[in-house]
């Protein structure tokens, strides 16, 4: 199809004065964002490099490298990696089953709607749902014990632990993966599979040599997004574990409430560390997304 319509007439050049005043329309928005998003964040970032008297220092950042704080970052990162990896894997399998599995089309809309809801169902209620299911008296725990004689506790499982938190987090990770990866799976062209088959490729070869390399930036990018998603989650963790698991958001929460570290500026540094990690993951996501859009239009 060729575009025969004449190029749109250039808009009448606005007079210089009007153009110069147009930015005034952004003032309310800029004021709001400046005061309640940018300035508070900058306060934390700058505070991370200051002593109590306001002088510049790296002491706070160096202070992060104490065993207890490092340990909390480490467990936070482990939970975020585990929940992002599991969420991405299961979400990918479910999305692939839905898009490529030859299932009735009617299943798609409800599953995507459900994913939209479930990815928003985080926080305190989610924690209670899992306590009621995998807690000491939970539905599944009791069922496994009475029907199969499997005692989860005896096997070392505890909902207030690393794996308990990870299993709970993937409740909002899987749906997010499904929502983001489905368009990418839709973008896999039928011709690519046919071309591979006519060249003698097996299904496995098609996946390992064609589909997965094309999907790889999307997969890795979504993984980064899921990682950031888990890293910043506070409410679920607090409602589920109280303070028994010292992940970064819980430690920061306690620090804001009562200065448990005994140094307010160390709190700034912890928050700054959180921003650095989530920002890095998000930038990775955006960059990989732009790369993947070359193939998957």
């Amino acid at each position: 199809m060729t575009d025969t319509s004449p190029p749109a007439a250039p808009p009448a050049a606005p007079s210089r004065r009007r153009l110069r005043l147009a930015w005034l329309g952004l003032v309310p928005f800029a004021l709001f964002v400046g005061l309640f998003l940018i300035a508070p964040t900058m306060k934390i970032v700058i505070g991370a490099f200051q002593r109590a008297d306001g002088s510049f220092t790296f002491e706070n950042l160096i202070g992060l490298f104490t065993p207890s704080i490092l340990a909390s970052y480490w467990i936070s990162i482990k939970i975020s990696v585990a929940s992002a990896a599991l969420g991405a894997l299961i979400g990918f399998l479910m999305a692939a089953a839905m898009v490529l599995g030859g299932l009735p089309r009617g299943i798609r809309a409800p599953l995507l709607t459900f994913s939209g809801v479930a990815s928003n169902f985080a926080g305190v209620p989610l924690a209670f749902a899992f306590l009621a299911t995998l807690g000491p008296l939970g539905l599944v725990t009791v069922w496994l014990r009475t029907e199969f004689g499997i005692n989860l506790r005896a096997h070392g499982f505890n909902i207030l632990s690393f794996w308990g938190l990870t299993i709970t987090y993937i409740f909002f990770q899987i749906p997010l993966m499904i929502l983001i990866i489905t368009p990418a799976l839709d973008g896999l062209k039928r011709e690519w599979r046919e071309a591979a088959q006519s060249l003698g490729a097996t299904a496995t070869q098609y996946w390992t040599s064609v589909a997965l390399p094309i999907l790889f930036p999307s997969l890795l990018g979504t993984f980064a997004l899921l990682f950031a998603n888990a890293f910043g989650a506070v409410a679920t963790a607090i409602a589920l574990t109280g303070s028994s698991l010292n992940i970064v958001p819980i430690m920061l929460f306690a620090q804001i409430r009562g200065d448990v570290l005994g140094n307010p500026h160390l709190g700034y540094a912890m928050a700054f560390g959180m921003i650095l990690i989530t920002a890095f993951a998000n930038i990775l996501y955006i960059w990989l997304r732009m790369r993947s859009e070359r193939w998957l239009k």
Partner: protein
Amino acid sequence: MKTAAAWAILLLGMAYFILPLVGLVEFSLSMTRGEYSLEAYRVVFADPRFRDTFSYSVLMAVLTIVFGVVLVVPTAFWVRLKLPHWRPVIEFVTLLPLVIPAIVIVFGYIRLYNTSSWLPLTGTTSGTNLLLLFGYATLSLPYMYRAVDTGLRTIDVATLTEAAQSLGAGWGTILARVILPNVLVSVLSGAFVTFAIVMGEFTLAALLDRPAFGPYLQLMGANRAYEPFALATIAFIITWACMGLIQLVTRFTKHDKAPR
């Protein structure tokens, strides 16, 4: 064979999602020993703190929505009409609340607007309420701005504005009587997301020490056996209803809009 595997994956996956919800509802009905009853719900509804915190959060959600609409609709409209080259910048800024964890933002609020600062919002109750409102508006900004901007894309902003202007309308009239009705569906879907976010939010309200539903939920969880599960069921129904309403309004309007 392939289809069977696909079904198996989906059903296993769905089981993971449905079991916790079944467990939640089952627990919330088990307060009376040996039988299912609505006893936990009765206790919850009879608790004055439930009514107080719930109505507080509903009020905050409504105010956040009103504030969000008043802030976002004119801005998105203005950017589309007069400052299109600013759009990527504005879009980037509105996505920042997804990057910066909420706990960091509220930490900044507490340090920036405490009693010894130039704008001591946390010094008074109404000031703290206002700060919480702005915090909620910040958290919902990515969803609200995106919804409204998508809505504006489907209408011809420039032509509508010129038509209204040539009929003598001022900016207020254009926004309230021309633009807003045209993007109402988008505004509504942004509003429902905002409502769901505010009703379940914990971190901001807890750290600003306001009597909202989220902190109440957490407090009950730490102290009671069955009531928290009834409360969580209620919270889940609210989330579900909000998302369902979004689907409903967007589907409702797909029919009366000409294809672009």
